[in-house]
C-alpha cells in the first residue's frame, strides 16, 4: 500500500514538470497556429546547457535557470523572427518541416560536440529523500514540482494581469481584432515564441535533475509534450496541468505494475487515444 502511494506521489510530482515542459508548445500553437517541432531542440539545449554549466563551473541546475530562461527567450524569438516569420504566408507544412530541421541541426551538433554517451548530472541532493509518514519522497522531485508550479503561477498571472499577457491572449483569440486594437501582432508572435522556448529550455534545466542527458532527450520528451498538450486542450493551462499529472501518474503506475520499459509507451498510447476521442468528440 505504501509502495503504491509512493508511486502515486512520485507520479504527481513528475507530472507537474511534464505540464511545465509542454505548456510552451500549446502557447506557441495558440498564438501562431504553428506546431513547434523545434520544441524538442529547446528541451535538449536546456539539459545540455545545464549539464555543461554544472560540469564546467559547478553551477546548480536551479541556478542555471537564470541562464536558460533568458537564453531560451532570446533563441526562440530569434527563430521566430529569422525563420517562422518569413514563412507566415506559406502552407503550414513548410513551417513544420523547417522547425523539424532546426531540431535535427541542434541534435546533430550536440552529437558532434558531446558524442552520444548518456551523461548525468549529480548534485549533493540528487539522491536525497525524506520521509512523509510511511512514504519516502525524493527531494529533487519535490523541488522540481515546486519550481514548475511556481512557473505556472507566474505565467497564469502574466496572462491574466499584464498588458503583454492580455496581448498574447488577444492574438491567440482573434488576430484581426487584436490588430484593429493597435496590438503589434508581429511582435506578439516573437514574444510568444520566446516564452514558449524559454519554458522548454528551463524545463530542460529542471529535468536534468533526474533524467539522463543525451541528444535524444528532446525526442523522448517532445512526444510527451504533444501528449500532454493534446490531452489538456492546447492552450488551457488548467487542463494542461491536469493532463501532465495524469500522464506522470499513468507512467509510474505502468512501471510499477508492469515494467519500467513500458513507461515511454504510455504517452504514445494516450496521445493516440486523445486524438481519436477528440475527433469523436467534435464530429
Amino acid at each position, binding site marked *: 500500500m505504501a509502495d503504491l502511494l509512493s508511486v502515486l506521489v512520485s507520479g504527481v510530482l513528475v507530472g507537474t514538470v511534464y505540464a511545465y515542459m509542454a505548456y510552451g508548445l500549446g502557447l506557441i500553437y495558440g498564438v501562431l497556429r504553428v506546431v513547434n517541432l523545434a520544441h524538442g531542440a529547446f528541451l535538449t539545449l536546456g539539459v545540455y546547457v545545464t549539464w555543461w554549466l554544472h560540469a564546467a563551473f559547478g553551477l546548480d541546475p536551479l541556478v542555471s535557470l537564470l541562464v536558460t530562461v533568458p537564453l531560451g527567450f532570446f533563441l526562440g524569438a530569434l527563430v521566430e523572427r529569422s525563420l517562422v516569420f518569413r514563412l507566415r504566408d506559406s502552407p503550414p507544412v513548410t513551417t513544420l518541416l523547417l522547425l523539424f530541421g532546426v531540431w535535427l541541426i541542434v541534435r546533430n551538433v550536440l552529437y558532434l560536440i558531446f558524442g552520444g554517451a548518456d551523461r548525468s548530472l549529480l548534485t549533493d541532493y540528487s539522491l536525497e529523500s525524506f520521509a512523509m509518514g510511511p512514504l519516502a519522497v525524493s527531494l529533487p522531485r519535490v523541488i522540481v514540482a515546486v519550481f514548475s508550479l511556481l512557473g505556472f503561477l507566474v505565467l497564469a498571472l502574466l496572462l491574466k494581469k499584464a498588458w503583454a499577457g492580455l*496581448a498574447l491572449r488577444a492574438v491567440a*483569440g482573434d488576430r484581426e*481584432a*487584436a*490588430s*484593429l*486594437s493597435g*496590438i503589434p501582432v508581429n511582435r506578439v508572435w516573437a514574444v510568444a515564441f520566446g516564452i514558449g522556448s524559454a519554458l522548454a529550455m528551463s524545463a530542460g534545466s529542471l529535468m536534468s535533475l533526474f533524467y539522463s542527458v543525451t541528444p535524444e532527450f528532446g525526442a523522448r520528451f517532445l512526444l510527451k509534450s504533444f501528449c500532454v498538450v493534446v490531452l489538456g486542450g492546447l492552450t488551457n493551462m488548467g487542463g494542461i496541468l491536469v493532463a501532465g499529472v495524469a500522464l506522470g501518474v499513468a507512467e509510474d503506475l505502468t512501471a510499477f505494475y508492469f515494467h519500467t520499459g513500458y513507461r515511454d509507451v504510455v504517452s504514445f498510447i494516450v496521445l493516440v487515444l486523445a486524438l481519436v476521442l477528440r475527433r469523436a468528440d467534435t464530429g
Partner: protein
Amino acid sequence: MSAGPRLELRDLRVRRGGVKALRGVSLHVDAGEIVALVGANGAGKTTLLRAISGVSAPESGEVRFGEQRLHGASPRTVVKAGIAHVPEGSHIWPQMTVRENLRLGAWSRRRARDWEGGLSRIYRLLPRLEERSGQLAGTLSGGERQMAAIGRALMAQPNLLLMDEPSLGLSPQVVDTVFETIHAIRGQGVAVLLVEQNVVRALGAASRGYVLEGGRIVREGPGEALLADPEVRRAYLGRHA
C-alpha cells in the same frame, strides 16, 4: 470637446484576392459628423473601412487624417492617429471578460495608465457593459456584443469611429439602442463613418451619405436628399418602401 481632424480619401484603389474591390474612391468625413456609407453586398464597404484602418494595404490613392498621411500605415499607427474600427460581426474575444475586452481597446493608451478612467466613461455611456463587466464576452447577447465592440473601440479615445454594419442581425429594438448609442458618441464630438445595409436608418441618422456600387461612389449628398433620390429608392428601398 475640440474638433478632431478631417478624414479624406482620394482616388483610393484596393485589390482583394486579385479582385478590384475599390476602383478609385474619394470621400471625406468632417470632425464630429456622422457619414453613412451604403451599398449592396459586395460593393466594397468593408474593404474601404479595412483600407482606412490599415488592415489591407491600398494599391494607390491617398488616406489623410488631418495632417497625417495614413496610406499604407499599420493598424497601430492608425489607432494612435485617432481612428478606431468596430469590425463587421463585432469580433469581441469570447473567452475574455467584458472588462478585459474593453481594456484591450485601450492598448494604444496603456502607457498613459489612465485606461481605468476611460473605462468609467465607457460604463457611463454603455451602462449595460458595467453590469456585465466580469462576465465572459461569449455569454453576451448579440446586441451586448455589439455594444462591447463599440465600447472597446471607444477605449482608444478616437476622434473618428469606423463602424461596419453594427445593426446586422439585431432585433428592431436593439437596433434602436445601437442608433441611440451612435448619436451619443457623436454628441461627445467623435465623428462616425457608418457602413450599413439598413439604408433608411443609416441615411436618417447621418448628416451626409455616400452610395457605393461595384467599388465606386455613385451618389453622394445630404442623407435626406439621398433618401428622396428615386434611383437610390429603386435600388435599395424597393422591398422596404
